[in-house]
């Protein structure tokens, strides 16, 4: 493992996105746009205040899942991964290169959406703004790691996109966006206990409603961080030097 190799890989991935203005615009502006829509479709500040933290968890998660699964699928299919695997670079360098590059993208995305919520749409955050930001970015990294993992099971970009409803859609439905998790049918509430997005949403809800750094909040953050690491490890396991 080497910091040098991680950073040149990050730089390469940023270079690939840099020319792609449309994707950059979509990634940074669409979540913000959807936030504005949410605010004025219901046209109710209390309802927005309840939904906004959940949405701040969901949007980066979904967008990073999509962007990463397509980007790493291309790396696998185009032969560049095979080429890299013959070179003196560790799988972890490559993986972390992706994590840092898309993590930075997530920082921008969350920054735009969160600032908009705070300064224009009137979201009131009782807890630490920095921590809220950190959780949303961690959540984006989770989406990224899952996207990287599932790209191993897709043959085409079309298939990769189809994994989104399965891996992200189910979590979005069960994470407490539509109804609080403890109001769902018992089985679903139990299932949602095993889905990492639920904890990201819980953490963001806690931080917007209370200034206290509660044990529950720390637990939630811990679960999201652990799941991100687990998904990254699973993603690493799908990168193989030898293939059939």
């Amino acid at each position, binding site marked *: 493992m080497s910091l*040098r*190799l991680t950073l*040149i*890989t990050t*730089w*390469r991935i940023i*270079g*690939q*996105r840099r*020319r*792609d203005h449309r994707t950059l615009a979509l990634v940074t502006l669409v979540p913000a746009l959807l936030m504005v829509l949410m605010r004025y479709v219901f046209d109710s500040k209390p309802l927005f205040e309840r939904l906004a933290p959940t949405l701040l968890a969901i949007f980066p998660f979904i967008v990073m899942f999509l962007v990463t699964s397509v980007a790493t699928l291309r790396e696998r299919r*185009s*032969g*560049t991964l*095979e*080429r*890299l*695997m*013959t*070179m*003196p*670079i560790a799988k972890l360098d490559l993986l972390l290169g992706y994590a840092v590059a898309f993590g930075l993208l997530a920082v921008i995305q969350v920054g735009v959406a969160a600032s908009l919520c705070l300064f224009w749409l009137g979201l009131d955050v009782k807890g630490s703004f920095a921590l809220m930001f950190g959780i949303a970015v961690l959540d984006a990294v989770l989406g990224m790691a899952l996207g990287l993992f599932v790209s191993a099971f897709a043959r085409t970009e079309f298939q990769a996109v189809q994994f989104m409803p399965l891996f992200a859609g189910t979590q979005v439905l069960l994470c407490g966006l539509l109804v609080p998790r403890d109001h769902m049918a018992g089985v679903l509430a139990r299932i949602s206990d095993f889905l990492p997005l639920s904890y990201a949403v819980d953490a963001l809800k806690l931080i917007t409603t209370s200034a206290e750094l509660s044990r529950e909040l720390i637990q939630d953050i811990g679960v999201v961080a652990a799941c991100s690491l687990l998904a990254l490890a699973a993603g690493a396991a799908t990168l193989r*030097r*030898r*293939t*059939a």
Partner: protein
Amino acid sequence: MNSCAVEVEGLRVVRGGTEVLHGLDCSIPRSALTALVGPSGCGKSTLLRAMVGVQVVAQGRVTVLGRAAGSRALRGRIGYATESPAVYADLSVRDNLRYFAAILKAEAPAAELVLEQVGLTRESERLVAQLSGGQLSRTSLAVALLNQPELLILDEPTIGLDPVLREELWRLFHQLAGDLGATLIVSSHIMDEAARCEQLLMMRDGRILAGDTPEGVRRSTGSQDLEQAFMRLAGETGAAVGTPA
């Protein structure tokens, strides 16, 4: 020191549930240009992948520069260009070279040198996605040349090129093997391309038909050219395994 750059013993490879290399043996001499020829689908790419160490192998041994293929010590000592160009379409030619050069810790002017070698200096700022097929495969070839590796494994590098460019690239390959003492293994499904190589490996259906100099292959089969030699050799083994010709 071993005089062979690559030694393959009893190599069996299964892909997609069928055996595609059937206990294959061959050796590649050092500091020479070896052509691996055979019809499409005979297993050339699979054999080259096994040498590079990216192919899952069912049985057998592949030794490269004195070490097991794919071992860590070999990474960066082998230049490899896959059949389909393995470069980033959304980067410029030069940015591609810079990235791979940084991984290989190649000398700073390496990128400019290989651009010249493959004749892409003028296209260096172009986005790879906007290159023609021939320019694309030369970009991929340029990456393989970056750190002046002692062993170059090139999978059909001349596919889809016009005759002039093809001629130029073969001249470059000869030069790399001759002046710089590199070992080159270049695959092709065009028999003619192999005629001027020092060594020839003829392949068919996952087996080696012949491994000799082009002259030796012609002589031993009593053929005018390699095409004819291949037909004769293929006919023999076809009879030997009892498949109708």
